[in-house]
């Protein structure tokens, strides 16, 4: 085939599809066509409880699509959800002449599909549940998926939300001076990691409670020695993915390091409590600390805490096994512990009256814990939304209106939930968790509100409340909420650093470096050298520059 022909042909094809490509592009929402706020309406902002000022035009009935991650309910469960939505939409229609529909992004390949759906920009979604640490909130804000929310818009269309979120928090939702997110900032949850363990076995091991890594080793010593007596499969059926949490945990417990969220899966960069605005990477800087860690983990590996081929183990279900007493620890965060420590039907370990679950949180030794970043859950409005004003009005209701909130979070009272004498939330007679758990269908993690939350009676509050108090007393606020790193120039370094860190840290965290013929010192040195070669100092310097610009 001659080359001219190929060239001509390619040119033709390019031209042809460019035409359609551009046509399609124009059809998209024009960024400049962001909703023009009615100036007059701004004045009308009142602190009265009316959700919409009188002169907001709501004459046209609109449908607001709310996008969330999760699998859509089917069958009976769908019917129950629809019943709730019908009721909710009745209220929404009365108040703001709008109705809500849920647009699900199923869990399968959710991140990819979430981003693709946003890239569509055809107005198929209005309200978007998002999160800065696990749902690409900032990249999407930067890429133009979210609408800039002006103060006037928020005051006019989401007045209650505007009021309830303090100014400092709004500042944390800004990128380039524009607000993109409405944060879930009034909802207590702790996602700091640690080890959930059996208090009864710790006592048998001669420990009052486990509150340090040394205690953990002693606990594991006891558990592995009595493995068959205790009826365990393994001390910990880890699946090889927890190397990062373990290493970060060790760092928290042995320094006053605070990491920056959302930079990379392994939160390597951060500051210290003493000097928060000087960037450090303990895993890189403090080799002595890491050597101690490597040695400790090799000890755990030799004790047989996890399976020999832990790095290839994909079939573990450690949490399920913990519930039924087949393993001795679960590594996860406080929120998971509140579930595992509660005497629910799932947790059959509590048929033994002595069984109790304790929680050793990373950093407990030196009280190093940071509160959750408020953009861990947030709502955004799509830049392609046809009705952004109404979307805000709907959000304001499901976030702040008691009736809407209860419906949207718990379902219909008396069917999906009820309140007991102590004011706690219970499951009514005949409740079926498979079909009536509305909370598990609306997946509303972008604006829960402790002012309206009703505590769940099935939780072990006797244990949880003191733990929350303990954490609250020790914790500091996340100091870098307003820092949205500009990573365009350094992303390729970050990707490579992440990769070498993952590879080397897996061997260190699971004590497998000896399989490669390395000592602890050599393994840590290799990590250091690899990180250096991957350009960690370039990234640290770039971030420091951005830090200086923001904080100094």
């Amino acid at each position, binding site marked *: 085939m001659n080359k001219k022909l190929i060239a001509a042909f390619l040119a033709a094809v390019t031209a042809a599809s460019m035409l359609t490509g551009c046509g399609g592009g124009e059809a998209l929402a024009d960024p400049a066509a962001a909703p023009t706020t009615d100036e007059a309406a701004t004045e009308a902002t009142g602190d009265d409880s009316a959700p919409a000022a009188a002169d907001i035009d709501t004459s046209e009935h609109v449908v607001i699509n709310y996008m969330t991650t999760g699998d859509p309910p089917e069958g009976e469960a769908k019917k129950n959800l629809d019943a709730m939505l019908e009721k909710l939409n009745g209220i929404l229609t009365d108040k703001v002449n709008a109705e809500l529909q849920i647009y699900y992004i199923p869990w399968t390949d959710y991140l990819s599909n979430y981003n693709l759906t946003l890239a569509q920009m055809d107005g198929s979604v209005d309200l978007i549940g998002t999160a800065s640490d696990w749902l690409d909130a900032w990249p999407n804000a930067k890429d133009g998926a979210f609408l800039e929310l002006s103060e006037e818009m928020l005051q006019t269309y989401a007045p209650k939300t505007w009021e309830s979120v303090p100014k400092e928090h709004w500042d944390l939702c800004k990128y380039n001076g524009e607000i993109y997110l409405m944060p879930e900032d009034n909802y207590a949850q702790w996602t700091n990691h640690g080890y959930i363990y059996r208090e009864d076995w710790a006592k048998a091991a001669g420990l009052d409670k486990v509150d340090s890594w040394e205690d953990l080793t002693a606990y594991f010593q006891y558990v592995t020695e009595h493995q068959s007596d205790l009826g365990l499969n393994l001390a910990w059926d880890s699946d090889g993915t927890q190397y990062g949490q373990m290493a970060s945990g060790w760092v928290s417990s042995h320094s006053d390091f605070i990491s920056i969220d959302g930079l990379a899966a392994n939160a390597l960069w951060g500051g210290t409590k003493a000097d928060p605005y000087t960037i450090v990477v303990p895993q890189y800087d403090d080799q002595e600390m890491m050597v101690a860690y490597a040695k400790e983990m090799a000890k755990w590996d030799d004790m047989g805490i996890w399976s020999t081929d832990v790095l290839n183990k994909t079939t573990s279900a450690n949490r399920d096994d913990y*519930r039924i007493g087949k393993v001795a620890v679960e590594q996860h965060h406080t929120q998971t512990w509140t579930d595992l420590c509660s005497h629910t039907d799932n947790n059959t370990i509590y048929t033994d009256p002595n069984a109790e679950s304790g929680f050793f949180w990373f950093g407990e030794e030196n009280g190093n814990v940071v509160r959750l970043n408020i953009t861990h859950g947030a709502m955004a409005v799509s830049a392609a939304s046809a009705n952004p004003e109404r979307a805000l009005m709907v959000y304001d209701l499901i976030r702040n209106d008691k009736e809407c909130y209860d419906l949207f979070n718990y379902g219909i009272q008396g069917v999906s939930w009820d309140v007991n004498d102590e004011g706690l939330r219970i499951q009514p007679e005949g409740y079926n968790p498979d079909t009536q758990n509305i909370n598990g269908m609306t997946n509303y993690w972008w604006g829960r509100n402790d002012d309206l939350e009703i505590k769940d009676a099935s939780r072990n509050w006797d244990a949880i409340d003191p733990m929350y108090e303990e954490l609250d007393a020790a914790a500091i606020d996340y100091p870098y909420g307003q820092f949205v790193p500009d990573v365009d120039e350094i992303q390729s370094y970050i990707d490579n650093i992440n990769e070498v860190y993952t590879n080397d840290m897996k061997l260190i965290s699971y004590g497998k470096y000896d399989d490669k013929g390395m000592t602890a010192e050599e393994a840590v040195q290799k990590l250091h050298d690899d990180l250096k070669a991957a350009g960690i100092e370039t990234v640290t310097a770039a971030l420091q520059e951005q830090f200086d610009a923001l904080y100094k």
Partner: protein
Amino acid sequence: MSNTRAERKQQAKLEAESSAAKVKLGASDIIIRTIGYVLVTFYALCCVFPFLLIIGTSFTNEQVIRSEGVQLIPKDFTTKAYQMVIGGGTIWKSYALTITLTVVGTFLGLAIIAMTGYALQRKDYPYRNVISFYIYFTSLFSAGLAPYYLLMVQTYHLKDNYLAVLLPLMMSPWLIILMKNFVKQIPHEITEAGKIDGAGDMTVFIYLILPMLKPALATIGLFLALGYWNEWYQSSLFLSAKVAVKPLQYTLYELVNKIQALKNSVAGQYIALDDFPQESVKMANAVMATGPIVLLYPFVQKYFIGGITVGAVKG
């Protein structure tokens, strides 16, 4: 149908001949056949054993799988995994959908591929090289996910449309080149003979060429059908949660993956992951997915009759 009958007659004649030859089997035939039986049997056993393991494990209690691994004969028999997979019964609708897609897609794809393959193999067709290259080139360059997705959704409006699954799988450069290659085995004289008799290109193709392409049609049809049967990727891209019934493999894939995705993601904290028989469900999925399609092969195989001869057509 007269040609098929003629063919069968020819076939019978040939078989009779070859069975006559069978009487005096040479040493070499015996060696080859022995090797054949031994090797093929060995390989077939290697293929079937893991499958038996999968079946056994799919009926095993999750706890046993976790502590002891896969099972040939279930130690603790349970059908929980199948109850989970069959669940509310949407799986049967998925079966129906997949079968429909497979039948329609295979039929249409096969027709187009066969026509194209024939035209591109005609020695006298002046554009054959250009078109071959045009098709082949697409196997080398693809634009990647985002441009493809946006085109399908924004320009073609195929989101939540089964056509987004049906169309892209209908053909591939590989299948067309394969077809072209099969057509090559048919001597050009047949086309020429047909044309001398005054038949048009289409007539030649339908009445002379197609009957000789049976093994090719069977092979490529089989590949197409397997492609549709195993499809989950297009579904995952284009069929959103609004579509109630999704193709079989995607439905099965989704069932296991949502648990896996949740476990590995931050979102896992929000969902109570109750004791889901994850491993046995994976196994049960394989059994369910394989199901009826294994019966396709023996059906296809009857078209792999050797010895269609030029003579048979000429005669």
